[in-house]
């Protein structure tokens, strides 16, 4: 794209087009598909896909608020409270139920005050939506009852794990719980959720290969890797994502050190010319020179930890694939420059747009708005049908499929809208905040820094603090303030205690986990800089816009 086009991009009009897209899909879902999980846009009816929870409605709930539709948000909350039942004899994916249902309900719970709902006195540490989220999460807990602590992939919501259930779970299906489960534990006070999520994460960490990579599928009983392809895409993606997001949300050094170790191995073995390929997890040899649509979240993740230069370079690679097809094929063969057989579809996934949103925050590069423009034009031109937006079955000829995944409204539309709405409350940089008085004390909430779960449901880190940490710290802070005003008398008190090890209570665990490898390295690292920090941007980043990239000076 040229500068001229970027200059002329009318952000407000694209924002309104995205809004119209949302309602086109949302209203047809309500009309033709509710209470089924998903809309079938070609036949104009509904179907249950991941359970039977009116999934699209739960998933789209917080998007309504981000678009500013308070009244519909309130209506849907009451509909869900009455209508959704988790005591059903349904086999559900543990992973999908967590990210879509638990995540959706948690974020709706945390946003409900902002949406003008009357909240109960104990909010944000109690509330009807939180109780629903907890109920849903409890249904998933039986899956974690394995010798390794790594969960089964599927659980029956009524009967627990089915006898004869396969013990093979993908890596992401094991490592994508910490954001929702730690939030649940912090808000409700029941540590069981965070505990199982951490245990699963540590099991994966323990089972990484000698060269520091994890495979695609593992047997949760025997801890043997069943699929040994290592990469950053399908089957693994959100595991890495949750290590970073968990580290940020919980100020947890241990999770971050795990990610940084993986990041090193990923760079060493899978990165070629700003692409990330698939390699054999033990040998590091390339097994598939393929870019997957799902991998496009990676640049966004890199920007969160400050690796903006590399993020932008990889993003620009991915963007060329979009320009070739008007969407991202599930698999793209990099050397051949074309789609891979049977993997030509584009189910309107959000990942590249997600990265564009994060990167736009960091760089304000008009190129990123251009991607947004391209996405709006493509999706409207190619996949819009009378009843909604249809999955693109084949990007080569733009044939459509009778499906509209719930992530289209939960993620794709949300990230697009946020890209075109830089003043949205979600982008709050901390200049605005709410003060909420709870029976346990006063909390500062909604001060920005929202962590999106992997289904784009935002979690307010301040709420976690409010419900747990703040209570722990309250009296200490009181004492310090007293001392502050009478310092002359008690001077000796002002010495600090030893450094906290992440979350305090996890200090022991973290030493266990990183004892073999990271142990010595961490000592040296400690002296250089904190793990929970980003590098400041280099000088040349000022000019790294409109496609310009810079090579390292060193």
């Amino acid at each position: 794209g040229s500068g001229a086009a970027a200059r002329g991009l009318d952000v407000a009009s694209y924002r309104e087009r995205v809004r119209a897209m949302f309602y086109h899909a949302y209203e047809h879902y309500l009309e033709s598909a509710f209470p089924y999980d998903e809309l079938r846009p070609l036949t104009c009816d509904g179907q249950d896909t991941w359970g039977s929870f009116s999934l699209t409605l739960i998933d789209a709930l917080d998007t309504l608020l981000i678009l500013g539709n308070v009244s519909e948000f309130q209506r849907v909350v009451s509909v869900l409270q009455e209508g959704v039942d988790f005591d059903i004899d349904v086999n559900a994916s543990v992973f999908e139920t967590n990210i879509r249902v638990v995540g959706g309900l948690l974020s709706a719970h945390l946003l409900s005050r902002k949406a003008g709902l009357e909240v109960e006195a104990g909010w944000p540490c109690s509330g009807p939506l939180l109780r629903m989220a907890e109920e849903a999460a409890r249904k998933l807990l039986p899956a974690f009852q394995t010798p390794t602590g790594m969960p089964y992939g599927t659980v029956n919501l009524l009967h627990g794990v089915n006898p004869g259930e396969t013990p093979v779970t993908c890596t992401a299906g094991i490592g994508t719980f910490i954001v929702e489960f730690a939030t649940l534990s912090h808000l409700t006070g029941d540590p069981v959720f965070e505990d199982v999520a951490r245990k699963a994460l540590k099991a994966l960490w323990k089972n990484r290969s000698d060269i520091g990579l994890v495979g695609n599928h593992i047997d949760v009983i025997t801890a043997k890797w069943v699929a040994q392809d290592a990469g950053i895409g399908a089957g693994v993606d959100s595991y890495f994502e949750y290590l970073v997001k968990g580290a940020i949300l919980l100020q947890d050094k241990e999770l971050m050190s795990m990610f940084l170790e993986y990041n090193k191995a990923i760079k060493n073995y899978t990165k070629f010319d700003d692409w990330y390929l698939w390699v054999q997890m033990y040998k590091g040899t390339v097994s598939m020179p393929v870019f997957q649509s799902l991998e496009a979240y990676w640049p966004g993740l890199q920007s969160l930890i400050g690796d903006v230069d590399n993020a932008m370079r990889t993003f620009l690679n991915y963007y060329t694939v979009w320009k070739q097809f008007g969407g991202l094929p599930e698999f793209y063969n990099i050397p051949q420059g074309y789609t891979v057989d049977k993997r030509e579809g584009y189910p309107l996934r959000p990942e590249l747009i997600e990265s564009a949103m994060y990167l736009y925050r960091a760089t304000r590069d008009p190129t990123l708005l251009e991607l947004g423009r391209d996405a709006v034009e493509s999706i409207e031109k190619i996949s819009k049908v009378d009843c909604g937006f249809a999955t693109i079955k084949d990007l080569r000829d733009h044939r459509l499929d009778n499906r509209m995944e719930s992530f289209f409204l939960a993620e794709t539309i949300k990230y697009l809208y946020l890209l075109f709405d830089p003043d949205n409350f979600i982008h709050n940089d901390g200049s605005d905040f709410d003060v909420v008085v709870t029976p346990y004390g006063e909390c500062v909430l909604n001060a920005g820094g929202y962590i999106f779960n992997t289904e784009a449901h935002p979690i307010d880190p301040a709420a976690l603090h409010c419900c747990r940490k703040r209570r722990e710290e309250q009296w200490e802070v009181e004492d310090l303030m007293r001392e502050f005003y009478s310092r002359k008398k008690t001077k000796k008190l002002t010495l600090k205690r030893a450094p906290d090890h992440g979350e305090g209570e996890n200090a022991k665990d973290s030493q266990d986990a990183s004892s073999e490898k990271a142990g010595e390295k961490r000592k040296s690292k400690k002296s250089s800089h904190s793990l929970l920090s980003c590098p400041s941007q280099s000088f040349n980043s000022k000019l790294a816009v409109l496609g310009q990239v810079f090579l390292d000076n060193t």
Partner: protein
Amino acid sequence: CSRAKDVTMPAKLPVNFFSTRSAVIDLFRGQLDYADQLRQDSEIVLYFFYAPWCGQSIAARGEIEHVASRLSDQVLFVAVNCWWNQGKCRKQKHFFYFPVIHLYHQSFGPIEYKGPMSAVYIEKFVRRVMTPLLYISSRSKLLDFLSNYEPGVVGFFEFNASPQPPGYLTFFTSALHSLKKDYLGTIRFGVVTDKRVAEEISLVHSGSVYLHRHANTSLIYPKDIMNFTAENICKWALENREMLIRWLRPHGGKSLLLNNELKKGPALLIFIPYNPLAEIHPLLDEITKVALEYHKCNKSQAAEADLQHAGDSDSPAFDSSVTDAQLQFSETFPIAKYPCCNTVVLPQWHSISRTHNVCELCVNQTLGVKPNKVHVPHCNFLEIEAALDSFYLQEHTFFQVISNTIECSNFLSFYSPFSYYTACCRTVNRHFLSFMSSEKTIFQTPKVAFSSHGKKDNTQFSIPHIEDRNCFIPDLNISSTNITGLSCRTNKTLNLYLLDSNLFWIYAERLGASRSTHLKEFAAIVDLKEEVHYVLDQNQSLVGPTLENFIKNFSVLYSPLKRHLVDDPSVHSAEEHVVTEVTTSTFQQTVFLSAKNVLLLYYAQWCGFCASLNHIFIQLARLLPPDSFTVARIDVTRNDLPWEFMTDRLPTILFFPHQRKEQSVKFPEDFSVNLPNLLKFVLHHSSLSSSEPCTKECLHKESVLQQGHISHLEREIQKLRSEISALHQAHDQLEAQLSEARREEQRLQQQKHTLEKQHKTLQLHSEQLQATYDQKNQELLEMAEKLQELADASENLLKENALLRILVASRGGKLQSKDEIEEPLQSEQTLPEDNDISLSTATAALEEKRIDNIDTIETEDSSGNRTE
């Protein structure tokens, strides 16, 4: 239902992309064959290959329509949908992006346009394709052509000899060819047909091609070395062209353009709004002038006094007639690059003397050409010869020169009225030291000499004359007052670049261009290696002199330029936040000059670890007394700070204690950032405490502190009150829930009672049922007994009956035996029949009885059935 799963839908049929009223022919079904046909009808064709879903194609559509509306009478505009998978285009072409623009000049093509998708640039390019060669009819046109900052290639073709002179077509094609390589057409091609005009640039033979250069020697295409083909000419021109100042036009895709250019060294980026279609570009001309001056370099002298040196072996016309000794000299002479100069060592006066008189003899045949525009044209062997001749004629004038100064003389050639010669002579020791110094002095020669001669010669060039004059020898320090040739005098050489601010203003903004200005002009020097940049004062207008000053200020040893710190303009200091937002411009004021303790957070919006701390800093700011503490933060992505305050990790927390601001302390990185830790940190380092005996001041402080404490406690009380009210609320809520629960309990209790009652009645009912059941059972048994009795009775009867029959039979037999033997068969036949039936009924009854004995408990129904 399951069938619906497999429902798919083919892509929608293509529709018009361009409006039917537009001047663009829209082949939206991808009819490439038809597009090719169309090409036959028009000399110039523009193809716009698009994909209907592509945002960039949609954005470019309007631009193309605009160009088409202006050029449709001369150019055919054809748009082809190259995505539609039933179309020919999609089947034959394989594009990785859209739109793709191809141009054809008759049969030549495709020439791909790769420039900005903006109407003016596209139109310019189309116009270049329409007329790749500029016809240069007169000398003044030639001068105009050559004076342009963009490199110019001139071909000389005599048309009077034949309708089309040999090589002309090749030259024409090479002009088209260059557009393929060079989408902006920065090399311009011109053609001269008039012999006299051609002579201006020393082209004699038809078919010769000339590349004009401003600072270096112009070149003639070496036909004898390279084949005269379009590709070669184009390649030769591209390789040898001068790039004194370059346009940077990033194409928008991933590119290392800026990286590669800026890594070459410090760069001056000049942003001006540029319209490629405009006839004149006064500002651009002015900037070009500065660039030329700046690059005159070692040739500065040549430019002034046109001192040239015949050391350029690349020059095809060069043929040195000087002796080996002289060559040796010319080689050691540091300014040996002058292409059209010759070093002449004069015969020694005193053979013992270790000095020589050395003259630099240069040819300048461009006096007739506008000064400052065309300084150093091509060097010609004949001319050098002529110059030498002239020189030796004047030789005696130089013999006396034995000095350390350089003396220059200019004299006109008697061969060509357009040429004159310069001879600069000096005495030289064999030690190179003096050469080195002389080199410097040569460069200092001011412009005066040149301009005066230029004027003179313009008016009276026909009269051969000799002019002697002492050249001005300035001090050896680099003069900061002169830009001419500065690029070679300084070790901080700048590369000069132009950017169109209509397209790339964002870079200017990144470098700190003010957003308020309407005039999009901006200049900045970027030094990637040193990680600094300087900005031309934006209050000054961007004109030649200010630019010159800017360059000079950068070049001098102790540069007065200050590193520019980019400031975030979006932060409004008027807005009051709990956490003070610091910018580059308010840093000093808020942090250093303030009479408070300052806790400063370095953050970036994009850094996840920073954003999740927002609430902690807000809490801290609300906790600390605002009259003695400031909690502040600075977004270091948008605000540059002096080196000493930079930080390489984010977040970083610094504490600047009141009255000891220079002793800032950093919050230790291995501590987790939470409220108690921050409070302790602040508490530990704040300068409130003093163990000295209390004076009045101290008492005052103490009272202030206590006042603060009181207000803090008041706030705490306030908070506790609201907490209490929240608790009350929660209490009420619980109460309500409790009473609700009680009501529920009561309701349940009642329900239980009713249920119990129901249970009792049910029990009664069941007892009754049991009783009736028993009764019925009894009745049944009785019935069975009765039946048994009946059966027994009937059995007895049967037996009796049988006995009776036997009796009757015996009686009958007796009777018959008594009578005749005629009718006994008939009676015997009927009798066994009767006997049979009664026997079977008797056995059935017996069997029934047996079943009854086995199943003693049978339902009423079945027993009823049976009884029925």
